[in-house]
C-alpha cells in the first residue's frame, strides 16, 4: 500500500526525469508513450487505490506513508510524507484520470511541435507536483507542490517562448500567484508560531483547542491562507493572470488552467476547513469573493471574442461558484462542483483546441462558424460540455453540482439571499454566453476553411470526457429528488456536513427559479445571436453599450488599474536608481581626497622660500601649542 501510494507521484516524476534528460534523443512516438504512459499508470493505480479505499476504508480514515524525514530543527519537524484521505482521493482521481486523458490528447495535438519532449516533461512534472500538493500531509510539502505547479504553469504558458507575449503572460501568471503564495507562506509562519507544527492532521486536531472562534489571530491566519488560494484559483482581485494564461497550448489550458491547478485554492480551503470554520468572518469573505468573482468573470465572458478567453473567464467564474459554496459552508458541494467542472471544462478546452487546430490556429469565434456539419464529433462533444457548463437540468453533471451550490448559497447558515441572487444571475449569464459561444462557432455560415480533422488520439478523450460531463453528476442528486448521495458520503468522511439555517424554505421552488434562469439565459442568447442579430448591431451604435462592452472585454479594467498602481511605479523607481545612488557617496569621498591632494600639493611648489615659510609656520604652531597648554 505505502509503495503504491508513493508510486502515484513517483511515476510522473520518473517520466519527467527521463524526458527532460534524454527526451531530445528519443523518437516522438516513444516520448508520447512515456509521457502519457506514466500518467495512465498513475491513474490506474489511483483508481485501484480509490476502489480499495471505498471497499475497506482505513480506520484512520486515510492512507499515509512517510518517505523520509525532510527537516527537523529545534521544535520544527516536517517529513516528506504522503497522506491520502477521501478529499485527497477525489483530487488524486481527477488529476490522474483527466490528466491521463489530456496527455493522450496531447500526443495527437502536439505532434507537429519540435519541442515535443519538453512539453511532455513539463506536463509530467506538473502532474507530479499537483499530486504532491493534494497528497501532502504537511503544509511545507503542500507548499512544495503548490510552487511546483506554479513553475509548471509558468513553463507551459510560455511553452512557445519565442513569442514575447507568451513569455510575458507566463511571467504575469507567476508574479500574481507568487503574491498569493507569499501571503500563504506568512500564514504558515503564523500558524507555526501558534501551534508549533505544520502537519495537517496535527493542525486539524490542535486548532479547535488552541484558537477561540473568531479571534483575530485565527482570522489573520485564515485570511492569509485564503489569499494564497485566491492567487492560485484566480479569484478577484488576483484573477487577471488567467485569461492571459491562455497563451499556452490548449491541453495545458485544459489540464492546468481548468481542471486541476486553478482548483488548488479550493483544495486548500477545504483541506484547512478547520481553520476557516473557526473564523466566520473569513468564511463570509470567501463567499463574497466567490460571488463577486463569478459575476465579474461571467460578465467578461459574455463579450470575449477569443474562444479560449471565453472559456478562461468561465473557468474563473465557475471556480467562483466553488468558493461561494465553501464560503457558505457547503464543503462537499464546492468539491463536487470542482469534480464535475473538471470534466466538462477540460472537455470544452480540448474541443476548443481541436477546433482551433483544424482552423489553422484561428482563435476568434466570429471567424469560425458553421462547424456543426464540418466536424460533427467535435460539435457533439462540445455541445455536451457546453450543456454541462450551462447546467441544463437533470441531463448534465453541471446541473447537479451547481444546483447544490445555488441552494446552499441561500439555505446554508453561512448563506443569504444576496449571495443566492448573484449566483442566480451568474447562472443566467453562464447559460447566455455558453449559448452565444455554441451558436457563433457551430451554427451560421462557414468563415474559415476547415483543415485536417482531429485524429483518433484526440477524439477518444473528447468522447470519454463528454460522457463523464453528462453522467458524472448522477452520483449525487439533490436530496429532494431521488436519494443518491455517494459523493457527499465519501467526502464527508473528511469534510463536515453543511449546516442548514432554519427554517428551510421549499427547495423545489428555488430549483425551479434556477432552471428558469438558465433557460432564459439560453433563450436570450438564442435571441441575440440567432433570431435577430440586429439588436447587437443597434447596441454597437449606443456609446453606453459600447463602453460597457469594452469595460467587460478588458476584464473590468483590472489590468490598467494594476499597471497604474504597481507596475509603473515599481519600474519607475527601479529605473530611477539604476546607478546605485549609494555609489555616489563613495565616489564623492574619492573626489574629495583627490581635491585635497590638489590642495596639499600646492605647498610642494619647489621654492625654498615656501619651505622656509613652512618651517616658520611649524615653529609658530609649536610655540602656540606650548602657550595654550
Amino acid at each position, binding site marked *: 500500500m505505502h509503495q503504491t501510494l508513493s508510486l502515484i507521484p513517483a511515476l510522473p516524476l520518473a517520466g519527467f526525469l527521463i524526458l527532460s534528460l534524454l527526451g531530445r534523443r528519443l523518437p516522438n512516438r516513444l516520448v508520447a508513450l512515456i509521457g502519457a504512459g506514466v500518467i495512465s499508470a498513475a491513474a490506474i493505480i489511483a483508481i485501484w487505490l480509490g476502489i480499495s479505499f471505498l471497499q475497506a476504508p482505513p480506520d484512520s480514515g486515510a492512507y499515509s506513508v512517510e518517505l523520509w524525514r525532510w527537516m527537523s530543527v529545534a521544535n520544527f519537524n516536517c517529513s516528506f510524507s504522503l497522506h491520502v484521505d477521501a478529499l485527497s482521493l477525489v483530487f488524486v482521481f481527477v488529476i490522474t484520470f483527466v490528466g491521463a486523458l489530456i496527455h493522450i490528447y496531447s500526443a495527437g495535438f502536439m505532434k507537429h511541435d519540435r519541442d515535443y519532449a519538453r512539453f511532455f516533461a513539463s506536463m509530467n512534472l506538473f502532474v507530479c507536483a499537483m499530486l504532491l500538493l493534494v497528497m501532502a500531509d504537511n503544509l511545507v510539502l503542500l507548499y512544495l507542490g503548490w510552487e511546483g505547479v506554479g513553475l509548471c504553469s509558468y513553463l507551459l504558458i510560455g511553452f512557445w517562448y519565442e513569442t514575447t507575449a507568451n513569455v510575458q503572460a507566463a511571467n504575469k501568471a507567476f508574479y500574481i500567484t507568487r503574491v498569493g503564495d507569499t501571503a500563504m507562506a506568512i500564514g504558515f509562519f503564523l500558524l507555526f508560531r501558534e501551534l508549533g507544527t505544520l502537519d495537517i492532521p496535527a493542525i486539524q486536531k490542535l486548532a479547535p483547542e488552541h484558537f477561540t472562534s473568531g479571534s483575530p489571530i485565527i482570522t489573520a491566519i485564515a485570511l492569509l491562507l485564503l489569499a494564497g488560494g485566491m492567487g492560485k484559483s484566480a479569484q478577484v482581485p488576483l484573477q487577471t493572470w488567467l485569461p492571459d494564461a491562455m497563451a499556452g497550448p490548449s491541453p495545458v489550458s485544459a489540464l492546468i488552467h481548468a481542471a486541476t491547478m486553478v482548483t488548488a485554492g479550493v483544495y486548500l480551503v477545504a483541506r484547512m476547513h478547520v481553520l476557516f470554520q473557526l473564523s466566520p468572518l473569513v468564511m463570509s469573505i470567501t463567499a463574497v469573493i466567490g460571488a463577486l468573482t463569478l459575476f465579474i468573470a461571467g460578465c467578461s465572458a459574455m463579450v470575449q471574442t477569443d474562444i479560449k478567453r471565453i472559456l478562461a473567464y468561465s473557468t474563473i467564474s465557475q471556480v467562483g461558484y466553488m468558493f461561494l459554496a465553501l464560503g457558505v459552508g457547503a464543503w462537499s458541494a464546492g468539491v463536487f462542483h470542482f469534480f464535475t467542472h473538471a470534466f466538462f471544462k477540460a472537455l470544452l478546452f480540448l474541443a476548443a483546441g481541436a477546433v482551433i487546430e483544424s482552423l489553422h490556429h484561428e482563435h476568434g469565434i466570429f471567424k469560425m462558424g458553421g462547424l456543426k456539419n464540418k466536424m460533427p464529433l467535435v460539435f457533439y462533444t462540445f455541445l455536451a460540455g457546453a450543456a454541462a457548463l450551462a447546467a441544463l437540468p437533470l441531463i448534465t453533471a453541471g446541473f447537479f453540482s451547481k444546483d447544490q451550490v445555488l441552494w446552499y448559497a441561500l439555505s446554508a447558515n453561512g448563506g443569504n439571499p444576496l449571495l443566492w441572487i448573484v449566483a442566480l444571475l451568474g447562472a443566467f449569464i453562464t447559460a447566455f454566453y455558453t449559448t452565444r459561444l455554441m451558436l457563433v462557432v457551430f451554427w451560421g455560415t462557414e468563415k474559415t476553411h476547415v483543415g485536417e480533422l482531429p485524429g483518433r488520439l484526440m477524439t477518444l478523450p473528447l468522447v470519454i470526457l463528454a460522457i463523464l460531463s453528462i453522467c458524472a453528476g448522477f452520483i449525487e442528486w439533490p436530496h429532494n429528488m431521488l436519494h443518491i448521495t455517494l459523493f457527499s458520503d465519501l467526502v464527508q468522511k473528511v469534510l463536515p456536513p453543511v449546516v442548514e439555517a432554519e427554517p428551510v424554505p421549499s427547495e423545489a421552488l428555488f430549483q425551479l427559479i434556477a432552471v428558469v434562469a438558465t433557460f432564459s439565459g439560453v433563450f436570450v442568447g438564442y435571441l441575440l445571436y440567432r433570431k435577430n442579430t440586429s439588436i447587437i448591431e443597434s447596441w454597437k451604435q449606443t456609446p453606453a453599450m459600447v463602453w460597457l462592452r469594452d469595460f467587460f472585454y478588458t476584464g473590468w479594467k483590472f489590468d490598467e488599474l494594476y499597471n497604474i498602481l504597481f507596475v509603473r511605479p515599481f519600474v519607475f523607481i527601479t529605473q530611477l536608481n539604476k546607478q546605485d545612488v549609494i*555609489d555616489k557617496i563613495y565616489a564623492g569621498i574619492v573626489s574629495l581626497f583627490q581635491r585635497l591632494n590638489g590642495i596639499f600639493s600646492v605647498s610642494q*611648489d*619647489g*621654492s625654498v622660500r615656501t619651505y*622656509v615659510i613652512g618651517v616658520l609656520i611649524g615653529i609658530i604652531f609649536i610655540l602656540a601649542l606650548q602657550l595654550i597648554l
Partner: protein
Amino acid sequence: MASYSVLAVAAILFTLGLIGVLTRRNVIFILISVEVMLNAAGLAFVAAGARWGQPDGQVMFLFILAMAASEVSVGLALVMQVYHQHKTLDVTRLNVLKDDIDIQEIKVQ
C-alpha cells in the same frame, strides 16, 4: 639676570636672521642669515654658560663656529655649481623639482 637679557638679545638676533632667510632671494645672503642665526644660538649658549658659571657654553660655541665654517664651505661649493649651471643665485628660480600632478584620475562611474 644679566644672562636672561643676553638671551633676549640672542633671541632678537635669531629672529633677525630668520627674517633675513625669509626675505632674501640670493643664496649667499641666505647663508649669511643662517650664520647670524647660528651665532645667535652660540650667544645663547654663552649666556647660559655664564648663568651656571660653566665653560660648557663657550665650548659649545667653539663647536658651533667649526660647524658653521664647514657648512659654509660646502655651501659655497654648491653655490658655485648653482651659478655655473643656472647663471643665477636666485633661489626662487631653483624650482625644477616640484609636484606636477598630471590629472590622471581613476574612473569613477
